[in-house]
């Protein structure tokens, strides 16, 4: 048995994204979750599975209490950082296919900008995935993801001639889409020159190569593909989903090939399970904690060869109207950092034809990825119908 076409995303919801929500993380997650459950046409008490994000800011018990769920049959936590959202989709479909539960809620919300947990530099130190880094690299000054990931980008540049201006194309295109979306933190157009003029954070990564820190929440509901036939929205099936971990998942410095991410292992499995090819993908939401990570994933997914990501993103292929429009909502770079669950929400809206001004015409088949911390990778291929 495989999970091929066994599940569907039957509801999606989100809050406003902002710098300062003025609300608790629990309130934000409840708000987004109620929106997703309503979107699915369900009563909150019908949720019988919940998968929460690895930081466990809100846990299944909070939802049982708030929704009065009488018999939650399945709960889990996905601790893969930014790869968690898509990993949760896999976990949900596995639980549903095993007959454990029917409708799994996957919430994610944070006060990543205003919260008491602090900004990224202090937050990551509390994460178990950063334990090795915490002992052997943070004392040297490699504190935050920008500093831990920059050597990957530098090596790619040295080996393949990739340029900062090519990375800028990702930031520019993503900003364009964020403005079209309407629920995005960044609302001013961005040019390659703006990117080049932005301050250096950790060479070669500039400010506009880096994702946002955001307040807000989003949520999805996953159900069986069979049940989805009779639910409120046009069916968006999960044709395939796969998770993989890189060699040396505890420290990037130890990676045999520093320019290869975990998703390189997951991608062939996902394409094979779905029975589709790269040319069939009409829209892709690619985890974008940093511009470089987008480019590297496009290579590791097989949309271009290793080393050709720079010219590929600079060719216009990734823009709306290009052959592979990506991050049509504005991503983590310009919409909000919801650890990639906003990417799943956007793919579902694209496939339903609900993506507004950034709608990819007649989008029926799309792909969404996750990237976690030291290179964990997840990918799902979804289709309308």
């Amino acid at each position, binding site marked *: 048995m495989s999970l091929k076409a066994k599940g569907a995303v039957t509801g999606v919801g989100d809050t406003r994204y902002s710098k300062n929500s003025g609300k608790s993380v629990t309130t934000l997650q409840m708000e987004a979750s109620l929106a997703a459950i309503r979107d699915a046409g369900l009563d909150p008490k019908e949720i019988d599975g919940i998968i929460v994000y690895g930081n466990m800011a809100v846990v299944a018990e909070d939802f049982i209490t708030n929704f009065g769920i009488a018999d939650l049959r399945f709960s889990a936590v996905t601790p893969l950082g930014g790869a968690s959202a898509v990993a949760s989709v896999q976990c949900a479909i596995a639980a549903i296919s095993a007959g454990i539960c029917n409708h799994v809620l996957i919430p994610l919300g944070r006060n990543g900008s205003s919260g008491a947990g602090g900004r990224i530099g202090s937050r990551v130190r509390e994460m178990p995935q950063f334990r090795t880094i915490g002992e052997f690299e943070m*004392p040297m*000054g*490699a504190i935050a993801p920008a500093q831990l990931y920059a050597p990957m980008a530098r090596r790619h540049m040295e080996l393949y001639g990739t340029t900062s201006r090519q990375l800028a194309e990702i930031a520019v295109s993503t900003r364009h889409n964020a403005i079209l979306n309407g629920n995005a933190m960044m609302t001013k157009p961005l040019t390659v020159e703006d990117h080049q003029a932005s*301050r250096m*954070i950790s060479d070669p990564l500039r400010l506009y190569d880096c994702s946002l820190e955001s307040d807000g929440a989003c949520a999805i509901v996953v159900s069986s593909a069979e049940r989805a036939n009779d639910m409120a929205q046009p069916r968006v099936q999960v044709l395939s989903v796969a998770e993989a971990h890189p060699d040396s998942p505890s420290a990037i410095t*130890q990676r045999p090939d*520093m320019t290869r991410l975990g998703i390189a292992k997951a991608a062939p499995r996902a394409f094979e399970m779905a029975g589709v090819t790269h040319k069939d993908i009409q829209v892709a939401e690619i985890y974008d904690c940093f511009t470089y990570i987008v480019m590297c994933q496009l290579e590791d997914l097989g949309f271009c060869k290793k080393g050709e990501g720079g010219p590929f993103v600079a060719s216009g292929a990734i823009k709306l109207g290009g052959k592979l429009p990506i991050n049509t909502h504005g991503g983590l770079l310009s919409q909000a950092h919801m650890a990639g669950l906003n990417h799943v929400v956007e793919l579902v809206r694209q496939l339903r034809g609900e993506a507004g001004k950034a709608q990819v015409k007649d989008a029926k088949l799309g792909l969404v990825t996750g990237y976690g911390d030291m290179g964990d990778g997840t990918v799902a291929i979804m289709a309308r119908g």
Partner: protein
Amino acid sequence: MTETTYMKPLPEASPDTLPFWKSLQDGKLRIQACSACGKLRHYPRQVCPYCYSMEHKWVEAKGTGTIHSWTTAHHAFHPGFKGELPYTLLTVDLAEGVRMQAQARGIAAGKLKIGLPVKVAFEIATRDLTLPVFVSA
């Protein structure tokens, strides 16, 4: 410098990793070698990923290597590093075939390239902590 004024993150050594940190205080860079199959590994871990032996010894590395990649930090994500911006972090392939990360000392930005030979040096951070750095070889 006394410990009360040291503002940077301190490594939380475990019994599994303490010999690495103790060695640095003696001006030695030591890495784990599997007692069963002899393979070297770094960062320290509990099990040999080649033969699954849980026995290991600590062997002194030559301290020489070449640059695998690098980044120069221009933004301090921790208040302890504000005073030394910009600083360069090197990912170094040690002669023993393992990698480690440490700050560069005295290597001009224009000289940085993959394959540049470097060697380890030791800087006393606190009474209980010595950190490795890399200088031109």
